[in-house]
């Protein structure tokens, strides 16, 4: 059994490399788990130990899938195809984005060319709400320490955070995808990612910020910077490792500029998230002087009670 497992794992590496070269090849691994059929479909040359009937079965399935018409974009079924994921698949993809490995390409190994919109959409929504909630919480905690700070729920932060994050996850992959397609002619081996795959990579890479934003509640500055740096490193690493096989073929200058731009934009987003908790920690004397000047005297007193 161990020998068979070893053999299976080795074949899968080859299979995924072949997949990386031909992203349009249709795979039939519906459940997202390692199945022997997946090996047979792609590594037909090297894995002759499996029976020929499995090969025939796979080719039948492939033909069937290619025959099935993609429903038009005005039908509900078109959008349903982007939500065709199970719970375990989503959890698996999140784990893959949390622990990026240099050889493991997120798109090929985790997404297996089946991007979904569920993950990016709900991760962005969660991040926006968690940002607003923790921003509110830091204000509450700051007010406990210094009762003169004016507390208010600051509900508009949800809107601002939400709009920013959704724009980031949609516009930056659009720009990246456009750029990669424009450079397609330079590349021979590896095709570009589809737009949805890029959105997926970005969406899942934002997941690591959710626990980080919660941890930023701890009011110790060096710890906050440490968590921020860690989150940025993990997130940017998963982005870079996903993009590396595609830009590797390009000239060094273009590859370097592209990757550094990606990392820079990601760092901008991370620092954009950070000052939201830090605002109320601005020097208290300035905060107290304003309410005393602008508002009638009884108001600060009522804040305390």
């Amino acid at each position, binding site marked *: 059994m161990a020998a068979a497992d070893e053999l299976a794992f080795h074949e899968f590496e080859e299979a995924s490399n072949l997949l990386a070269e031909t992203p349009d090849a249709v795979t039939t691994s519906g459940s997202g788990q390692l199945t022997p059929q997946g090996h047979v479909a792609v590594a037909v040359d090297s894995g002759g130990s499996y029976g020929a009937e499995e090969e025939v079965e796979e080719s039948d399935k492939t033909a069937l899938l290619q025959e099935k018409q993609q429903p038009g974009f005005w039908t509900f079924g078109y959008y349903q195809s982007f939500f065709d994921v199970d719970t375990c698949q989503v959890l698996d993809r999140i784990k893959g984005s949390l622990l990026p490995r240099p050889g493991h390409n997120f798109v090929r190994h985790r997404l297996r060319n089946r991007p979904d919109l569920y993950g990016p959409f709900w991760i962005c929504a969660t991040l926006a709400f968690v940002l607003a909630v923790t921003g509110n919480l830091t204000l509450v905690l700051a007010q406990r320490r210094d009762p003169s700070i004016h507390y208010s729920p600051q*509900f508009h932060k949800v809107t601002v955070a939400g709009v920013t994050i959704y724009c980031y996850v949609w516009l930056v992959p659009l720009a990246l995808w456009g750029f990669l397609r424009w450079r397609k002619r330079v590349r021979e081996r590896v095709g570009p990612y589809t737009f949805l795959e890029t959105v997926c990579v970005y969406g899942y890479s934002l997941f690591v910020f959710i626990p980080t934003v919660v941890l930023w509640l701890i009011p110790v500055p060096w710890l906050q910077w440490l968590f921020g740096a860690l989150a940025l490193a993990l997130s940017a690493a998963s982005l870079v490792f996903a993009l590396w096989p595609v830009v590797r073929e390009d000239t060094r200058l273009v590859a370097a500029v592209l990757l550094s731009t990606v990392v820079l934009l990601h760092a901008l987003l991370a620092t954009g998230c950070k000052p939201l908790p830090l605002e109320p920690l601005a020097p208290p004397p300035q905060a107290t002087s304003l309410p005393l000047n602008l508002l009638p005297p009884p108001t600060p007193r009522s804040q305390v009670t």
Partner: protein
Amino acid sequence: MSDLQRLMMEPTDHHAQALFAGLSDISISQDIPVEGEITIPMRSHIREFDSSTLNESVQNTIMRDLKAVGKKFMHVLYPRKSNTLLRDWDLWGPLILCVTLALMLQRSSVDSEKDGGPQFAEVFVIVWFGAVTITLNSKLLGGNISFFQSLCVLGYCILPLTVAMLVCRLVLLAEQGPINFMVRLFVVIVMFTWSIVASTAFLADSQPPNRKALAIYPVFLFYFVISWMILTFTPQ
């Protein structure tokens, strides 16, 4: 009519019997529950019922709808696996609850608009667009629940949180302090759990089994946001 009678009296032809079997029910005026149902068996029955709802007094109409809403409130407060919310869906209950919640969450406009809590329109938009998004999400994941049934369930399960808002407002009339906050926190947490349990009891069965968690998580997020709005409410 004589032909039909002859056909009805002959027991041999099963097909004809099945065809005309429903005719024997015309004269029986049973209380078929029509409220909220889309398929009504007999045409003459419809005409009879329509004229009676046109002629009835306004009080009867209102009381009938209120009773239906009240019945569903009971189902939410004591959640069991039943089909009532799904079968006889209506959107009156969610509208009443949403308006009540938004009115109670509205602060007086002493504060500047920018820094304040959620205004009426914000609460309204969050509740209804949140419910629509969750419904779309569950339908895209392959759930077999209709659009309005899901809206109905999500709207009715806001009832525990509305009760929590009422309790919080009453508690806030007392003097503020950490005990005050603890009481409010406890009440909101209990009601939040109640909402989640109630909506899961109604919605979970309509999802494919390996995607239940994916469909329930947005519901959790939705009620969490509403609970957060309730908890951070401070009257000024």
